[in-house]
Structure formats: C-alpha cells, structure tokens
C-alpha cells in the first residue's frame, strides 16, 4: 500500500489529511496504522491537497503527523454465491465468525441502472396481513414504505412480513439493518437460524451503536449483494431495510461534521440526491426483480418531516403506523387513511376489492366524525343510520387487527395469515350487517371470520 498523506487534524467524527499524492478521490478508503491498531477512513471531501475523511470507528488514541495509506479497490463486499447465509458489517467484512474464503468482491458504489434496463411488472404479492393486503396491496417489484414514529411497531411489522412473505415465496432475501437495535438484529439472525432459513438470506448490519460512517454504508453494501442475486442469479429478491431514515440521519451527522450548511432541521444539503442515489438502485430489470420493504422512522411523530417526505416520493406504496391507533391497543397500528398503494386501482386489484376499500374508508371516516360527536353528546343521541355506521365501523376497526406470528410472545395468541379473498368476504359481510348482533370484542385479534357467529 502506498502512503498518500499525513494526518493534520482530528475530531470525534472526522480526520483531516494533507495529501502528498494526487491519485486520491472521493470515496477512496485510507488506512492508518498506529499503536497496534488499524484505523480506516473514507474520503468525503477534497480541497486542493487537503482531504477530509470520516473514520469507520472511533479515533481515540490517534495523533497528528501519522501516515495514511490508500486501500486498493475502495469499499467492497462479496459478490458471489457465498453471500447466502452470511452476516456482514457495513464495510463488507463477515461478522458471523464463519471462515469462508472470498470468491469475488465488488465495489459497493459501482452499479447504476439505466432507464432501458428497468422493468415494470405487475404480479400481486399478498402478505397475509389483512390490513395491508386490503388497504395497501403490493405487487412484485414494489417499494413499500413502513412509516411510524418511535415505538409504534415498525420492526414488528417488518418481521411479520419477513415471516409471511419470505416463508411463503421461498425466494432469497437481503436484510439491511441500518441504525436499529443490535438486539433485534441478533434475534432475527437467531430466528432465521432456528427456522433453517439462514441459507436463503444475507444480512448486512450498521446498527445504532456504530459510527455515522458505518450507518451510512450499510445500505450500499447491502444493495450490492441484492444486485448480485438480481443481476447474476436472475432472481426475484426480497429486500428489507430497517431503517432507511437512519441512513439520512447518519448522512446529516457527517454533513454537520464537515460544517456544510444544513437545510431545515439540520438535514444535509445533499439529502435528496443521497436518497435518489440509493433508491434508484432498488429496481427491477427484465431478468430479476427486487421487492423492497423499507421501514421509515418518523422523528418527533412529524410525518411532514423533510427526510420522510424525500424518501416517500420514491415509493410505490406506504403503510403508516399511528400512535393514536396503538394507544387504543389495535395492532398492527395502521392508520388506514394515510396508508396507500399504487395498486389501489380497479385494473390491478379488481372492481370488487376496489369498491370495498372505498366503502370501508367512507364508513371509517364517518366514524371518526361520529367519535367527536359522541364525546360531547353520547351514543344515544345519534340517528339510527349513524348508529349503524358507528357500530359496524368499530367492528371493521377491530376486524383489521390481527394476531401476528412474531408477537405471539407478547399477545399470547397464535399468529394467523389471512387470504385476501377471505378478507374481502369478511369485510363485505360486516358492511352488510351479517355481524350486527355479535359483540365487537369478538372481532379483535382474529384471522378470518368464516361466517362464524362469534
């Protein structure tokens, strides 16, 4: 390795280097060895002969005047069948203790899709989760956002989708953990292992305890692996990202460190292009597809947040989790008014499903109005028609809760998957008054109803 410069400045999240070599460019990886430790950095800014680097890890113990060397090939990750069953960190290093020789590696920034390559197909993909399949159905190749504030159940839902979709379709999957809990990452690994699904999956983690550099790289590394399966193995791949907001967050930490002028709420100036760069890579071609589920954290419960909005413009659909719904004990805590999908179109899901969605939304929005009236006047003051809407809506609301496989431990109820046809029939029946005489309580946390009276 060649010496390319010397360290001239250090702060917690960045290092300044005086370059003596001109062949250093952005996104190059530099290395410094000192006191039996190897420190690695990525170049993020070059101004004449001064480069600014962000460290992979902590910089404690580093000092001025040390030599830095250039690492050939930049940031790379395995690009071969050997990725399956493996766990990597953001920098493409295996962290599962398995000793697997690398076959071939690839730079994580290289791939870009041309308009020509992109394919739009439309096979439906059912999750078996009633409220998603009904209000925000998705198709193969879709990008689905799962939005929610802190602690309303994003990760639980993404795990349920992994459980249902992945187990049902048996396709390979990539899980990218960005800025989330290490505990959950490890639990997912353990569960996959216990279910013998590990060899169909590859995981890349840059979790919340790690540096902003790590958290911002996990997405690129994970995407490269997903692209391998799509482009080289010609597969339909499932991609789970938990949580894409943390990617933007990491980028803003880096941007602040570089003293760049932020836009609103401290987000980096380059936010929109950063997001586009990764989102444009998550697409399908004629030979393979990537269907992605992206959890999106809503900071301070503010859905109008700039970063959240910038991400959702790239999506084909969104499922919004709402604290107000969670407070009522209704899980999954989905706000059906804010959730949507491009598949809600009679041409895609059929007239019956489409009409039922419209009708249900009509009921539920009237219900919201009625709730306010009741808070002042009480139920007895409602007209007979409104009373009917009120009670049926409460039943609909309860019906759309569901026992999930991944929260069996929490609820003590066995998880269930529901076929979309059953959901449609049940909703139709509730709207038509078939369950008018049943206690609303009995519709809570059930699978399909089957016309059963309770």
């Amino acid at each position: 390795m060649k010496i390319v410069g010397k360290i001239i400045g250090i702060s917690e999240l960045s290092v300044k280097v005086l370059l003596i070599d001109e062949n250093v460019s952005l996104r190059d990886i530099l290395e410094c060895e000192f006191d039996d430790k190897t420190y690695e950095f990525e170049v993020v800014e070059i101004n004449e002969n001064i480069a600014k680097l962000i460290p992979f890890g902590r910089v404690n113990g580093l000092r001025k005047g040390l030599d830095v060397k250039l690492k050939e090939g930049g940031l790379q990750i395995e690009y071969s069948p050997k990725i399956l069953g493996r766990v990597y960190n953001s920098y493409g290093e295996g962290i599962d203790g398995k000793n697997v020789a690398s076959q071939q590696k690839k730079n994580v920034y290289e791939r870009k899709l041309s308009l020509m390559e992109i394919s739009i197909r439309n096979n439906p993909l059912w999750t078996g989760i009633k409220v998603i399949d009904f209000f925000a159905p998705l198709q193969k190749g879709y990008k689905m956002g799962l939005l929610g504030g802190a602690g309303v159940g994003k990760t639980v839902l993404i795990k349920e989708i992994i459980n249902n979709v992945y187990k049902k379709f048996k396709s390979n999957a990539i899980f990218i953990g960005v800025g989330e809990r290490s505990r959950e990452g490890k639990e997912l690994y353990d569960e996959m292992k216990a279910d013998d699904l590990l060899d169909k999956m590859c995981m890349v983690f840059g979790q919340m305890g790690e540096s902003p550099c790590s958290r911002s790289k996990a997405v690129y590394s994970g995407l490269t692996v997903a692209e391998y399966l799509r482009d080289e193995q010609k597969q339909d791949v499932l991609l789970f990202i938990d949580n894409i907001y943390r990617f933007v967050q990491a980028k803003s930490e880096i941007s602040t460190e570089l003293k760049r002028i932020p836009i609103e709420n401290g987000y980096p100036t380059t936010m929109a292009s950063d997001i586009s760069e990764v989102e444009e890579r998550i697409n399908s071609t004629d030979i393979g597809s990537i269907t992605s589920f992206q959890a999106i954290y809503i900071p301070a419960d503010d859905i109008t947040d700039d970063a959240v909005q910038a991400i959702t413009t790239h999506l084909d659909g969104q499922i919004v989790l709402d604290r107000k719904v969670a407070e009522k004990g209704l899980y999954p805590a989905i706000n059906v008014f804010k959730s949507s999908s491009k598949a809600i179109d009679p041409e895609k899901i059929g007239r019956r499903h489409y009409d039922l969605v419209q009708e249900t939304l009509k009921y539920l929005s009237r219900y919201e109005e009625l709730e306010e009236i009741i808070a002042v006047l009480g139920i007895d003051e409602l007209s007979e028609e409104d009373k009917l809407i009120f009670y049926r809506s409460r039943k609909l609301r309860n019906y759309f809760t569901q026992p999930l496989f991944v929260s069996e431990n929490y609820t003590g109820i066995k998880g269930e998957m529901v076929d979309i046809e059953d959901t449609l029939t049940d909703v139709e029946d509730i709207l038509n008054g078939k369950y008018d005489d049943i206690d609303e309580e009995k519709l809570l946390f059930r699978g399909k109803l089957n016309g059963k009276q309770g």
Partner: protein
Amino acid sequence: MGTHIDELVNQKIEQIKNNENVFDSGTVIQVKDYIIEVAGLENVTYFEKVTIWEKGMGYVNQIKENSVTVAIVKEDAPIEIGDLVKTTGEQFKAVFARQALGRIVDIFGTDLLTGKVFDKIEYINIENDTIPIMDRREVNRPMLTGIAGIDLIYPIGKGQRQLIIGDKKTGKTQICLDTIVNQGAIIDNRANDVICIYIAVGKTKKEIKTIYNELLKRNAISYTMMVVATNDDKAPVVSLIPFVGLSIAEEFMKMKKDVIVVIDDLKKHADVYREISLVSDKTPGREAYPADIFYLHARLLEKGCQYKNGGSITILPIVETKGGDITDYISTNIISITDGQIVLSEKEFAKGNKPAINYKNSVSRLGGAVQKADIKKLGAEIRRTFLSYLETKEVYELANMDEMTPELRNKMKVGKQIQEALNQPKFRPLTNEEIIDKFKKLAKQEGNIDEN
C-alpha cells in the same frame, strides 16, 4: 496556507518545544467557558488527558492544524491565556474500584462520602467499543421490579433497556429505587449476584444524598454504586458520566454479573451535550441539538444487553418530559432506541393511581418473552382486558350504564377492579406469586372473551 498568524503560532510552538523535553507542552490561547484552545501539543493523541499547570485537567476533544481544543473536567483556579498545558501520554480514563460498591463516586474515582480515592483501583476506558452484534444473546430472563404494573403488564428482562418517562414529580426515580430495593429481596433468597449502578446526571447534591439515604435505610446500598456528576460539575464531566457508569457496568458484566443501571436522566444529558456542542461551534440541528444527538444516546444505550458469557446489563434510563408530551425530539429518539417505555403521567398521579403509569402509552417490546410461563399467560390476559377497558371507557363514558349490554357492564366493572389492584405503595414489592394471587380472580371473572 502560511498566513502571518500561522507563522507566529509556529514560532511559538518552536519556542515551547525548546523549553520542554519530557512531555509535550503548549499554552492556552483561548478560553471559552470550559473549552480552551491550546497552541503546541504537537504529539498529543485524541482524547488524551492533559493538565493545565496547577489549575486543572482536561481531555483533548479536537486536534487542529495549529492548535488543540481541550475540554476542561476539573478547574481549581481560573484558567487564563498563557497558562502552561502538558500532555500525560495517556488517555483520559475512568476508575473502576470494587470497593466503590455502597459508595458515591465521581468521574475521578473519588469516594464523595470521605473525599478519598479508593486503594485498589483500575483504570478503564470511559467508553468501550460497541458490543458486537454476534456477542449478544436473547433477552429472556425476568428482571423483577416488584411492581405489579410492570412485572405483570409490561415486564422487563435482564439485558433490556426500558425507558422511564414522565413529567416532573410523577415518580420516575421512585420506580428505579423500588427496582433496586427489590433486588435485595431476591439476593437474600437465592444468593443471586445483582449489582446496581445509579448514575446521577447533573442532579443536585441534596437529591443525591436523599437517594443514598433511601437506599441505605432499606439495605440496598451494599450492592449499589452511585456514580454521580452534580449539577455544578463541569459540563464535559456531566456529559461523560453516563458512559463512565456503563463502563463500570461492563466490568461487572464481564465477571458474569447481572447489572442494573439507572441513568437519571437523559433529557438533562441531552441538554448538557447540546450546550457543549454549541460552545464548540457545532452546527445546530433540530431544536438546536447537534446532528449526532441520536448517536450519542444510541451508543450509550446499546451497552445494555444479555452478554454471551451469561452476564447482562439492564438499563433504566429516565427522561423528564414537559406537559406530558412524549413525542418531543429527545423523547422519541430515546423511545426509538429502548426496548420499551413505562410512561408516567401527572393525570394518573393526581387521580391517586400510584405508580402513576399510563398503561395506554407504555410498552414492552419483549413482553412475555421475559416472563415465566404462569405469569406470562395471566399478564397477557389482564393486559388485553385492561387496555380494552381503558379504550372503551372513553367512548362509553357518557353512555347510560343501565342500557349497556351485560358483557359491556361486566367489562367496565372488571376494568375498574384491575385499576385498583394495580395501585401499590412505594417500597412494598410483590413477588410473582403474590401478583398471580392478586390478579388471578380478575382474569377469571371476565370469562366470555376467550371462548373462541
């Protein structure tokens, strides 16, 4: 480069170098509260401990081309321009002493009850690297608080991070003290090895003394270490203290001990960190907090885990809110890190419900996974019944009781009974058996929901 000022500075550095030979030295060229800029110190390492001649001590928090920024942790006399600064050749470290159990210690390892340093000490990193993902194990052993509303409804496991959040005077610290005291009962029974660490982040001396006395009175101090930074300590000290406390916890965890860490509190910590960031000219972000405020708390709380060797660190961070709003920036940040939250509310407190837990907003992400089979089943049932009651209560508050269906009337009755049963005075811990006894009948009465 090569301006006039640079030349002057370089000249100065030359002069200083010629004068000194043992350790690197420099002079103070700017003083900005507790952040000083020092010329010289050419070979200093990042986070190295430096001394300000006869006046204080600090650590290097930034190395620039021609100067070094130092955060002051101790100032015995006012630091002035021109003061001599020396390197020490070692990183700024925390102190670990087993004797500190039962005592109140500061960041320098001083026993604040005697003012002395412990005899047997060990220097440890203020902050260790993140515990690798693959070194963690599933969190599934119960950490019993003795509080029915927690152990039954929102249980906590060993290695879990459970936030305690609420307004002033809603009993946040009390829940943690109850938990610490309850460990004593468990230790006596089963000779278990639990260590508690209470970290005070910028509390008043009076508050700290009160907590010490409470623990002392209830024989809970022998297995508890209080790691404190008072509110008149230097801001860098207050911002480092939770890390120090957790480094100490990691030492115990590596000895296969179960450690419970209380951090009181993280809102204060966020504010101190914001202050330092702004004084250090970092760009402010949302609510003027720096962009890395999430990272700060994430890496701190990620130290809580069930470790592969059998030891564990359970963290109970406290966050103080205003006006009962748990959706502000810092609170939601921390909620998104922890494995659940116990929300305390002024309203419940005023209604006389103690502990004043708001059961609708509280959550445990691990739930039944950390409960034993018998209490798990009961807990799931009681929780479902009770939450459903709370929700229904709002809608049917104005409805006529007589016109309700019998099912609904029963639900309202049972719900109210559960609410009453959850009331529990402080320092009166219940065992799992006692909790099961108390709530069993309430689950039975309800009956007709689980038929299908």
